[in-house]
């Protein structure tokens, strides 16, 4: 494999990691607020809190990692996307800021009850951020960013009038809720909290239909938006078929209330197949017709340095992540504990 492919694969893997952990996080924020507002009380909220508190910071790093890596491997991406995304990018920063800060304020700051305002902020941003971030995928299909007289320009009217944009946003929204509900069902089952499990299982089933419908819609909208990409996707049709199969297994398992661990594994595979099939067929473009992984790649020295740093970094990162999961996700005592104890 050449450096270009290694680079983009590394980034794509991290973006996939972000999609999974962030979806859990974003959806959890929404469910948490929804259940408290609806009067399910703290039934679901406690489960969510126990999972989220030790990991919320880590989620953010996945995104930053992807972004820094993108600039490192493809410095031109900073130029095109950076100029074009000034306003929406800044809005995402604000949403991420509000979300991160008020989560911490609620979890570590107030010693007593949950602050409803903080939780509402947390829930609402959890829905808005994935919608905003997903628009970058729509932009990457080309036609939105143009260069005229050496100046990068964005055609927002063209962007918002485009059904593909909306199909991607819709897909992002429903998959966040689906992934999150699936994971939390698994987590609730593991903790032996039957009440929470039943509610979360219902959420998971409710959101599974829209997820697959939105995926199909987005799939066909790509054909209208970027036929070349669509033809590429058909070449990897088996990946999308595998994704659909995993989806069926996952839904069946959650329906039958069995093997929730495998069930979530299937959800991850479902998204992995779709994500890597989509990504593979998008190549060689990072931004259609403008940023090409072969033509806009960084210099070789930097590429080698980055890949080396990445390898060394993984040696530290993987054991740390494993430790984190062993201590909190898969530690029976912690998972069953009445509440997350903080210092």
């Amino acid at each position, binding site marked *: 494999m050449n450096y270009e492919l290694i680079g983009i694969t590394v980034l794509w893997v991290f973006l996939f990691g972000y999609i999974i952990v962030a979806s859990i996080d974003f959806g959890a924020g929404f469910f948490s607020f929804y259940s408290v507002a609806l009067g399910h009380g703290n039934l679901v909220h406690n489960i969510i809190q126990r999972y989220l508190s030790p990991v919320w910071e880590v989620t953010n790093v996945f995104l930053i990692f992807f972004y820094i890596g993108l*600039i490192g491997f493809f410095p031109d991406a*900073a130029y095109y996307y950076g100029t074009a995304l000034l306003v929406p990018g800044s809005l995402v920063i604000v949403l991420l800021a509000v979300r991160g800060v008020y989560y911490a304020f609620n979890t570590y700051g107030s010693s007593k009850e949950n602050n409803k305002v903080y939780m509402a902020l947390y829930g609402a941003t959890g829905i808005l951020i994935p919608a905003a971030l997903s628009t970058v995928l729509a932009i990457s299909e080309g036609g939105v960013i143009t260069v005229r007289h050496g100046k990068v320009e964005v055609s927002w009217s063209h962007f918002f009038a485009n059904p593909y944009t909306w199909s991607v946003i819709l897909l992002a929204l429903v998959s966040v809720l689906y992934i999150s509900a699936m994971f939390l069902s698994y987590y609730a089952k593991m903790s032996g909290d039957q009440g929470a499990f039943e509610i979360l299982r219902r959420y998971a089933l409710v959101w599974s239909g829209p997820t697959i419908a939105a995926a199909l819609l987005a799939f066909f909208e790509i054909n209208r938006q970027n036929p070349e990409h669509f033809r590429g996707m058909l070449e990897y049709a088996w990946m999308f078929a595998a994704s659909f199969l995993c989806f069926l297994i996952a839904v069946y398992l959650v329906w039958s209330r069995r093997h929730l661990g495998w069930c979530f594994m299937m959800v991850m595979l479902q998204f992995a197949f779709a994500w890597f099939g989509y990504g593979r067929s998008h190549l060689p473009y990072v931004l259609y017709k403008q940023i090409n992984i072969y033509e806009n790649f960084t210099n070789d020295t930097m590429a080698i340095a980055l890949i080396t740093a990445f390898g060394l970094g993984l040696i530290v990162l993987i054991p740390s992540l494993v430790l984190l999961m062993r201590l909190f996700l898969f530690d029976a005592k912690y998972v069953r504990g009445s509440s997350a104890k903080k210092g």
Partner: protein
Amino acid sequence: MTSLDPVLLSRFLTGLTLFVHIIFASLGVGIPVMIALAEWRGIRANDPHYTLLARRWARGFVITVAVGVVTGTSIGLQLSLLWPSFMRVAGQAIALPLFMETFAFFVEAIFLGIYLYTWDRFRSKLVHLSLLIPVAIGSSASALFITTVNAFMNAPQGFTLADGVLTDIRPLEAMFNKATPTKVAHVLVSAYTFCAGVLGGIAAYSMLRGQKHVYFKKALKLTMVSTFVFAVATAMVGDFSGKYLAKYQPEKLAAGEWHFDTRPYATLVFGGVLGKDNEVRYGLKIPYALSILAGNSPRTEVVGLNDFPEDERPPLSIHYYFDAMVALGGLLVLIPLLYMLRGWVPGGKAYPRWLLIGIMALGPLAFVAIEAGWMFTEVGRQPWILRGYMKTAEGATTSGHVGLLVVLFVILYFVVCLSCIRVLSKLFRNQDAMEEIKALEMKGDRP
């Protein structure tokens, strides 16, 4: 709107984000070190007071980390959003430290989460303490890596520029440039000083409000000795930084010191105003001091500002930032020293009121010193974004929307900082230290 507007607004917005981020980033770098010190003392001396101290600091620390993460994300993304042309070039040369910074941040984030939730989980307290080591290393390492990026902007090297294209890139040379050692050292020790000062101020505040328990005295002692050590180290590294500037970035030192003609036996000016024809009035003039600062000898020739073309000179206002930083740095050494010498003051009380007030001021003083220091170093490299290679105006975005975003971010930071202060003060008011100590001692009574 002129085409220059986005440049000025982008500079303002970047400055604003960094202004806020620097506070929380410094806290993020220094506080883990202080927590580790306290927890270590607690284990070594088998003194639960120190452990409680570490616990209480850690509780507040998470809140500041949250704001640090958020503002750090802001500045990270804003680099590309506001300075796309610069990042296109910089990405070729310094992607490596940026990349490594995220790894360091990753490790810090993971272990901080673990540390906070495992106070009572391990039988050995040392295991819990050891979790703080990756946190402290991670935060200091990310400060190190990100500062090398800034050092690169001040002293670009490790590449060859041919027809506007960077070639022959040597990433490690770019990272470990001439400015890196002094800059990284100065950033780290000043952050440690700031944090020790802030935490000392909290203890002094409790004592001023009439708390007499030995817990607060222990907190004061630990933080004041630390502040003194770190502040002295900061001053020493600051001296090296001055020598670095004299040698490699003389226009910054010259502008900071209002030193116009190149000559030996140069005078250091403190304060004052510039009159017509750039003569200094009202300033405190110390003969030979600038030459000594620049090269340890009054004979050292110091390059003056007149040797540089007018459009490559930094603004002369940075003189005041420099003076503020140095003067406050002096106070940061002096106040902890007075604390340590208080026993020798004849007839004085053990904890005189004026001294406690002075200690309470340490945090704010260090805060102003850090901000002034960054203003000096950043404004002092204008008009360059990459000294000698790229002017700031060439790196900025061309978008016309920056003004709107300035308003948005001013509101965001204002609200976030305000609620952070509120949450922190509520946190400590709701969980009174005395009650926790009582609970501890009751536990200690019964074997």
